[in-house]
């Protein structure tokens, strides 16, 4: 998933005694793993939190096209170019399903787009990092999509029906994305000294930003507790981060690359790796708009939207004329 720091009601989880009869019935359905559908009654906080979460995920897919799109015209072979183009196209498709899922909660795609462009809504911090060499395209697939999948797989079972169904489709494509990323890394790691250098450089720059994708520790967060009670969040951020590190470290070893963390070591007792925390000051800076690419990413989206206005208006005007002509002819 590409959602970070999603706020829920901020009031913590209500006990059964504090719930209205509707809320209690709703919570019982969630507890029994019965999907909530758009026409069902739902608490206002649930609806709003989901809009924030699904919207942020959709925006991340859209902005996420930019760092990868940066390499389409420079991809080194026809096959790599086609795979990358297909992957970026999938991401636009994910954006589309997710905006549609959000629309079932009573918000339009245009409203969500405006919230993105005015900075009211965020997208994942990871897409504010640049793609500087070809191995970054491998690293984005391997690490960034890998981290996203950690979160998305459990969300296939999320309580909101349209979101769960969107996640099932998205997960199928994301695991293909991760494999193609790892495949690029393999080629690079086994390649010439320069290619190996690119691969290590990409891992060095993408390791900590990938760990940040899970968000800071939320074991104590009231927002997370509520989201988990509603089953729109399944695991804590730390659980997922640990799982990601444990999965990724052997893959890096297999590639012959070094994870840029001197404190990384296997901890037999906990059955997982010990590792360094990312720099959370940097994370909050990126969220505030001070990442290496925030301004450029958002400007690119604003420009696409503004430059496209005459196109959207033109096509709409034509559709209206056509409809009017049809009425006149009848």
């Amino acid at each position, binding site marked *: 998933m590409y959602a970070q720091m999603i706020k829920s009601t901020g009031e913590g989880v209500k006990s059964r005694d504090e719930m209205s009869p509707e809320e209690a019935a709703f919570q019982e359905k969630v507890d029994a793993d019965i999907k909530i559908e758009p026409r069902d009654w739902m608490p206002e906080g649930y609806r709003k939190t989901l809009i924030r979460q699904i919207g942020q995920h959709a925006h991340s897919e859209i902005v996420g096209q930019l760092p990868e799109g940066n390499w389409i*015209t420079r991809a*080194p072979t*026809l096959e790599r170019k*086609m795979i990358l183009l297909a992957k*970026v*196209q999938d991401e636009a498709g994910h954006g589309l399903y997710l905006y549609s899922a959000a629309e079932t909660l009573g918000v339009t795609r245009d409203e969500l787009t405006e919230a993105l462009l005015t900075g009211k809504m965020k997208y994942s911090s990871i897409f504010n990092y640049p793609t500087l060499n070809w191995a970054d395209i491998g690293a984005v697939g391997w690490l960034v999509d890998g981290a996203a999948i950690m979160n998305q797989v459990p969300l296939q079972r999320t309580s909101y029906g349209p979101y769960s169904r969107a996640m099932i489709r998205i997960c199928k494509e994301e695991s293909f994305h991760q494999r193609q990323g790892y495949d690029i890394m393999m080629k690079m790691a086994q390649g010439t000294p320069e290619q190996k250098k690119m691969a290590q450089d990409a891992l060095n720059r993408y390791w900590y930003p990938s760990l940040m994708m899970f968000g800071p520790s939320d074991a104590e967060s009231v927002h997370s507790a509520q989201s988990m009670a509603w089953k729109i969040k399944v695991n804590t951020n730390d659980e997922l981060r640990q799982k990601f590190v444990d999965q990724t470290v052997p893959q890096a070893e297999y590639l012959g690359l070094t994870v840029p963390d001197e404190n990384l070591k296997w901890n037999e007792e906990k059955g997982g790796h010990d590792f360094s925390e990312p720099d959370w000051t940097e994370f909050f800076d990126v969220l505030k708009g001070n990442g290496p690419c925030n301004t450029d990413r958002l400007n690119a989206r604003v420009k696409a939207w503004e*430059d496209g*206005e*005459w196109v959207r208006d033109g*096509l709409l005007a034509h559709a209206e004329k056509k409809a009017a002509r049809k009425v006149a002819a009848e």
Partner: protein
Amino acid sequence: MAEVDKTQLAQFLLRMGDNTLILGHRVSEWCGHSPVLEEDIALANTALDLLGQTSLWLGYAAEVRGTGETADDVAFLRDAWDFRNLLLVELPNGDFGRTMMRQFLFDAFHSVLLGRLLQSSDQTVREIAEKASKEVAYHVERSADTVVGLGDGTEESHARMQAALDYLWPYVGEMFASDETDRALAAAGVAPDPANLRDDFDALIGKVLAEATLHIPDSDFAHKGGRTGAMHTEHLGHILCQMQWLQRVYPNANW
């Protein structure tokens, strides 16, 4: 039927593959920047189809040349003077209207040409045309719809589409300017003489542009030099700088 010379067959295959390669490159530049999400997806799809066709055409060109090259070698290791694409496809994207007008003019030509190639005396050409013509039938339907929608849209969209047509029109004539190679291929039944495609092309675009309320410029002046390689535009070199950069800086690497 006359036997076709390998050099001439390879020339024809480069013309086909370079058109799709360079246009695919241009269209892929839109990725993440188009006016609406559905257009991002559709443009990526068009670029993907064109690049898939490129692998087939250039792969066959490499085979015919018999030098042990791959499609990638042909795409990434030739200099501008060896490219045989139409000048039209290397022109910069401009606004979305110009991109779609260029796409429509090329799709119209491409669909007429591929239709004829279904009858090619060369089996591989026929097979590639069978696959490509299905994709291009969809491309031309979509680009024609967009040209009509924007031509007959608002005052602004109409003006932009007319400006796009005016700018691109001098690059249309090259599609039909045939030479010795074309005549030899036509005699061997491999490919039609492009000069003979003009009527079908004019009929197709005439209908669509009329519906789009756009005016076809009166001039029949044509810029030429792309498909013969005699003189490309200044833009091609910049495309190759991007496209070939990694292959050139790190030769013989496996990607």
